[in-house]
Structure formats: structure tokens, C-alpha cells
């Protein structure tokens, strides 16, 4: 913002020197408060309270359905603050638009929803505000370890977790009963059941996998892979590490045999398939019940939740799938107020209550462990206490997972590479290699030091 002011000041020459100085001083002081005073966390928290009391106007981009009610509750609690809510429709568009606005140098929001997997690509070029100076680090104990790990990285705290997606297996009990299938606990059993169903009725699919990047990375995560390791400008990409091949070899047994349905995910046909038994199981994040209840009414009473199948029957290991955080954009004209809103949004019990009521799955441990939450019986799932299964999964998420600093670009070319293996029912490892190769050259073009082992 200071550049146009400076230009004008220069044009008016000597008379404006005073103004110029004060403008640059203001710029200095605001930047020092955001990066310098990390030592004094309690002062940071106090500055957030002060910002809330002073009031102002901020813009918040999100696609969370409960956002409107959350903002209304916030404005009621802090009448001096006005929050302009912008519904960005979904994660894909949201990233592109944020990228564009940052590139344009204006029009970016103050607070923005970002998926965990896309955080690094905004953190690395310095687009987001480090929240450490505002005492946000004190909130660490409130969040599950895997979600905190996603927002606190690269020597800073870049966002606050909103929801999480510990993976579980959803299965259509009606289909299981009809064809005499048993609920698999390991991937070997999963494959056996898939074959059994396919033999009984080839029009039904035990699993539908149109091949999307988020699912694949989560599956590699569960199998113990660490294909992406980023340390500043040094990035390691190895999509043929032991975890990656472990998953690919397992999943190949379904893919190459043509046992996977290829109904496009999130399409009208997919929703229909979830309702009428065409798709028998769905291994995905714990946020799925909300989607099923809202969008697949005909599946009511048919679906159940079971733990994610594992490679080792005696050792439950899971992964996260999806989920997002909110962050403060560096360009924000009022970073303290933005951070204060963010703190309220993702840690105040009132806000989280509204979020949960809309069917969201929390990242806050207090809510994950509350007995109300755990013992809630879901009518849609035939009275099953589904949260117990999902929360249990959140405790077994494999640690140390990282995404690429350009994950949304990587995801965009996933369909060009690994997606082709799914489409043609060929070896997934070949697709993974192609994906790796394109990411390596992209990373090098962008100035990273990329290694592959």
C-alpha cells in the first residue's frame, strides 16, 4: 500500500517529505511487530485483545458451510468488528483466487481458508503471516498432534486448524449383507472381498477410485511413505520409497484387475452411486458423514463406519485425508485484528459449537474427547456411535508426513500421470514415476534444489 503514497509524495516534492517519513515509519513499525517480538507471547495475546476492542473491518474467504453463522456470532460478541464473508465455493478455486490476488498485490483477504496440503505453497513464498508473535503458540495443546503438525512448520505458526480428516472405512451394510461380505480389517481381506463382490455382481464396485491426488497421497501416508520432504529450498521427492510402492503394489491388485469403479468423484453419478449401492465402500476422511447425510439421503440407514483397513492386522495405522486451516495473509492491512478473529474462529468454544452442529469434524482435542461427541448415536448410520471409530483413527495417524511446497500444482498434474494408470488399469508405479519426474523438473525450474533419494 505504501508505494502509491510514496510516488505521490515524491511528486509533491519537498513539502511532502514529512508525510513520506511518517508513512515509511508506519510501514516499519507494523512490519516489526509482525516478525520481531516473538519473545513476548503474552504481550502478543494482549495485542489481539486490544485489536478486538479497537475494532475494524476484515475480509474472510472460506467455503465452510457454517462460516456465515460463525461470523454472525463473532460480530455479535465483538460489535466493533465487521467481517466481510466471501464464499469461494471450494478449495480448488480458492487457491487459484488467492494466488491471483497475491500476485495482483491487492484484493487478497485478511483471513483465508487453506487446505493443509496447500499450506506449504503459501508459506514458502512468504504469503502468510507468522502467528507466533501473537501468542498463538499457547494454543498448541488444544489441537490434535497431526493437525498442529500441519500448521506449525518451517519455523513458524502459519495457520490454525479448523477440521481434520482421520481416515476410516465407510461401507454399505445393505450391500454387504446381500452378498455375504465381511468387513475387512486388512488390505488383503479388502482385496478378497472386492473380488468376491465383483464375481457376484460385476455392476457393483467394492471400491470406486477415479484416481485423485488427495486420496493417493493419504494412502501412501498410511503405508508409511515419505515421498515428499521439504526443508526450505531443499526438496526431496521419492514416489518409489518403500511406503509408496507398498501402497501401489497393493492397490495394483484392484486396479489392474479392473475391480475399481471409475465413477468421477463428486459427480452427480457418484452421489447417486453412493445412494443405490453401486459403490460398496469408501475409505476417506472423517468429515464424510456430514456429506453423506446432507447429500445422499437415500443412503440413510445403510452405511456404517469401520476402522481403515491396515497392512498389519495387529497394528492400526491411519492417515489424514482433507481438512483445512485458516491463515492470515501477509498483505492484510490489519494483521492483529485478522489474527484475533482467527483465534476466535478456531479456538473459541462458541465458534466450534456452531462448526460441529453443521456436521464438521473437529481438530480440537477437547471436542474430540468429549463424551457427548463420542457417544452421539447417528441415525443415518443405523444408530452407530461413529465418532468413536473416527476419533480412534485420529490417534493412530502416522507421523512425519509432509506435502510439497507446490502441492496444488502437483495435484493438478496428478491426473496427467498417475490418473492415466487408473484410467488404463496399468501399473500405478509407472504413473507415480511419471508424476515424480514432472514434479522434479517443476521444482528445479522454480529454483528449488531437488533430490530424489
Amino acid at each position, binding site marked *: 500500500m505504501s508505494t502509491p503514497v510514496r510516488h505521490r509524495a515524491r511528486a509533491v516534492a519537498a513539502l511532502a517529505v514529512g508525510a513520506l517519513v511518517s508513512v515509511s515509519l508506519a510501514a516499519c513499525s507494523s512490519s516489526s511487530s509482525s516478525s520481531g517480538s516473538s519473545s513476548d507471547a503474552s504481550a502478543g495475546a494482549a495485542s489481539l485483545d486490544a485489536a478486538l476492542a479497537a475494532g475494524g473491518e476484515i475480509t474472510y474467504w472460506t467455503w465452510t458451510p457454517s462460516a456465515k453463522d460463525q461470523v454472525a456470532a463473532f460480530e455479535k460478541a465483538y460489535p466493533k468488528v465487521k467481517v466481510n464473508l466471501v464464499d469461494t465455493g471450494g478449495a480448488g478455486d480458492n487457491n487459484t483466487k488467492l494466488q491471483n490476488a497475491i500476485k495482483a498485490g491487492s484484493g487478497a483477504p485478511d483471513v483465508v481458508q487453506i487446505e493443509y496440503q496447500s499450506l506449504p505453497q503459501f508459506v514458502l513464498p512468504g504469503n502468510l503471516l507468522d502467528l507466533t508473535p501473537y501468542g498463538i503458540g499457547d494454543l498448541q495443546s488444544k489441537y490434535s498432534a497431526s493437525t498442529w503438525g500441519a500448521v506449525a512448520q518451517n519455523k513458524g505458526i502459519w495457520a490454525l486448524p479448523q477440521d481434520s480428516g482421520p481416515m476410516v472405512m465407510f461401507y454399505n451394510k445393505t450391500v454387504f449383507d446381500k452378498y455375504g461380505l465381511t468387513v475387512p480389517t486388512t488390505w488383503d481381506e479388502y482385496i478378497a472381498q472386492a473380488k468376491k463382490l465383483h464375481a457376484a455382481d460385476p455392476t457393483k464396485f467394492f471400491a470406486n477410485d477415479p484416481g485423485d491426488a488427495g486420496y493417493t497421497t493419504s494412502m501412501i501416508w498410511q503405508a508409511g511413505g515419505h515421498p515428499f520432504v521439504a526443508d526450505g529450498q531443499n526438496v526431496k521427492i521419492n514416489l518409489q520409497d518403500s511406503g509408496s510402492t507398498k501402497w501401489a503394489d497393493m492397490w495394483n491388485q484392484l486396479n489392474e484387475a479392473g475391480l475399481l469403479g471409475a465413477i468421477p468423484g463428486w459427480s452427480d453419478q457418484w452421489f447417486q452411486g453412493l445412494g443405490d449401492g453401486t459403490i460398496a465402500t469408501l475409505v476417506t476422511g472423517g468429515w464424510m458423514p456430514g456429506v453423506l447425510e446432507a447429500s445422499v439421503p437415500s443412503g440413510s440407514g445403510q452405511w456404517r463406519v469401520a476402522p481403515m483397513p491396515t497392512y498389519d492386522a495387529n497394528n492400526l495405522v491411519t492417515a489424514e485425508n482433507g481438512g483445512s486451516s485458516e491463515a492470515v495473509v501477509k498483505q492484510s492491512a490489519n494483521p492483529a485484528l485478522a489474527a484475533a478473529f482467527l483465534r476466535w474462529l478456531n479456538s473459541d468454544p462458541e465458534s466450534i459449537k456452531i462448526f460441529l452442529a453443521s456436521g464438521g469434524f473437529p481438530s480440537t482435542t477437547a471436542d474430540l474427547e468429549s463424551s457427548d461427541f463420542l457417544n452421539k448415536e447417528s441415525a443415518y448410520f443405523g444408530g452407530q456411535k461413529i465418532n468413536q471409530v473416527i476419533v480412534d483413527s485420529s490417534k493412530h495417524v502416522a507421523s512425519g508426513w509432509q506435502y510439497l511446497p507446490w502441492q496444488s500444482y502437483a495435484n493438478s498434474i496428478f491426473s*496427467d500421470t498417475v490418473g492415466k494408470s487408473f484410467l488404463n488399469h496399468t501399473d500405478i508405479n509407472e504413473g507415480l514415476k511419471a508424476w515424480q519426474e514432472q514434479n522434479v523438473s517443476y521444482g528445479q525450474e522454480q529454483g528449488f534444489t531437488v533430490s530424489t533419494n
Partner: protein
Amino acid sequence: MSALATTVRPRRRSFVGLGFVAPFLAVFAFVLVIPVGYSLYLSLFQDKLIGGRSFVGLDNFTRLFADPKFWDGLGRVSLFLAVQVPVMLGLALVAALAIDSGRLRGASFFRISVFLPYAVPGVVAVLMWGFMYGDQFGLAANINSLIGSHVLQPLTPKWILLAIGNIVTWEFVGYNMLIFYSALRSVPGELYEAAAIDGAGSWRVVFSIKLPALRQAIVIATIFSIIGSFQLFNEPNILRTLIPSVISTYFTPNMYAFNLSFAGQQYTYAATLAIVMGVFTAVIAYVVQLRGSREANR
């Protein structure tokens, strides 16, 4: 260019005319000339996430001409152009001749029906066809179950270009039909009377009077269709949300440019691609224009 020559006696040689043209030229410069210049400038640089912008000379161009993804997309739109444009223009021609023949009941109803899809926003058209193409629950599935096979799978790699071609044809056949029809209406009636006196049959009238009269209209329609094909974007890009593995990020050059800039942050490389495609299209359109007018003068 023939039109320029027919300007009847230049009126006043002054700047009055320029005054009329100036507002257009000002906006024209702002939204066309300057962006072209700006992209030329950008094409000489490279942006990096780490390290920022640096001058690279013509590297982007060398890289583009060696980029298999670029050629893949260009090859695809060329194939599309070679098949879809003739089919669409052929259909438009048949429809225009039929409506103009005077041997049709309810000609004006047919004229407006065939034209109507042009008024449908491209986005709506693709959403609509996308629903209908579904082979699990869409209209394609209905038809498959009617004929008792699973042959119709518009959203698979084998069919997808055909499926997109169908959408584009549906959208624009009426528009082209109208251009042809309008040209036919301006054929002087005396020509037909003369033909009737000569005892020419209706096919001979079509070939010796109507088709020659349509030559310029066909050249114009071809040029616009070529430009449209090279720019192919909306239809595959919206369908892609349904079938990402079938439609790659570089399915057409335009999609490649879009994804390079907005997913990959490679704005300068995308600008290079835009320039090359612009030059390429302009050259081809110019060649068609030249050939068209040369044959007309024969």
C-alpha cells in the same frame, strides 16, 4: 480487402474520420495492443518461486518448441479442427440450403430452432451435455439400457473428442447456418429467373448459383471456426471437473496456458505460449483468407 477498394469517392481528406475512430482505437490499444506488447516483454523472462524474475532471452521459445505437452495439445486441436469444422460447416450449409430452397414447410420455425442453441451460454451448454453424457445415470445410460449394451460412453478417452465436438457443433451450427442463409438471401432474384428460363434443375442451381454466392460467407465462417478451434477451452475445461484423468491439463494449448499460469505460476512461459498460438492462428486465418479470395477472383 475488396471492400476497401469499393469505398465510393473519398469524402473529405481530414481528421474528422479519425475522430470517429479514435475512441475505438484508444480502447483497442489498451486491451489488445498493450497486452500483446506486454506478453512479448514477459516472454523474455522467467519467474521462479525461489529467486524471482530473471531475463532469459528466447529460452522460453526454445523450451516451448521442445515441449511435448504443447505439441500434444496443438495436435489435438488440429485434429479437432480438421474433423469438427468441416462437419459443422457442412451441416450448416445443408440446413441453410434447405431453408432457402422454398420447398420446406415451416421454414422460419426450423431457422429459429437450429439457431437457438447459439444463445445458450457455453457454460450452460457444457453443464447440460455433461449431465446427459453420464453413462451410469445420465441420458447415455438410458440409451444404453434401451439398446441393451454399454456402447455409448461419451466421457471415456476414445469418445471424448467426439463428445466435445458434438457440444461445439450443437452450439455453433445455427450461427453458421444463419451466416450462410443470410448470404443466400442476398442473391438477386433475377439470377434464379434466368436459371429457370434456362431450364436448370434445383441441383444445378445449387452448384452454379448458390454455392458460388456463398464463397465469401464460407471463407468468413471457416476463419471464425479455425480461431474458435485453436482457442478451445470452455468445453474441455468444464468437462474436466467430471473426468480429470481423461482430459489432461494440456488437452488444448489454451488449457495448457491457463494451467501454467494459474496452477503452476509460470506466467511468463504461459505468455510465450499465448504469443506463439496467436501468431500461429493469425497466419492460418490469413492463409485461408488469401486462398478464399484468390479462388473467388479466378
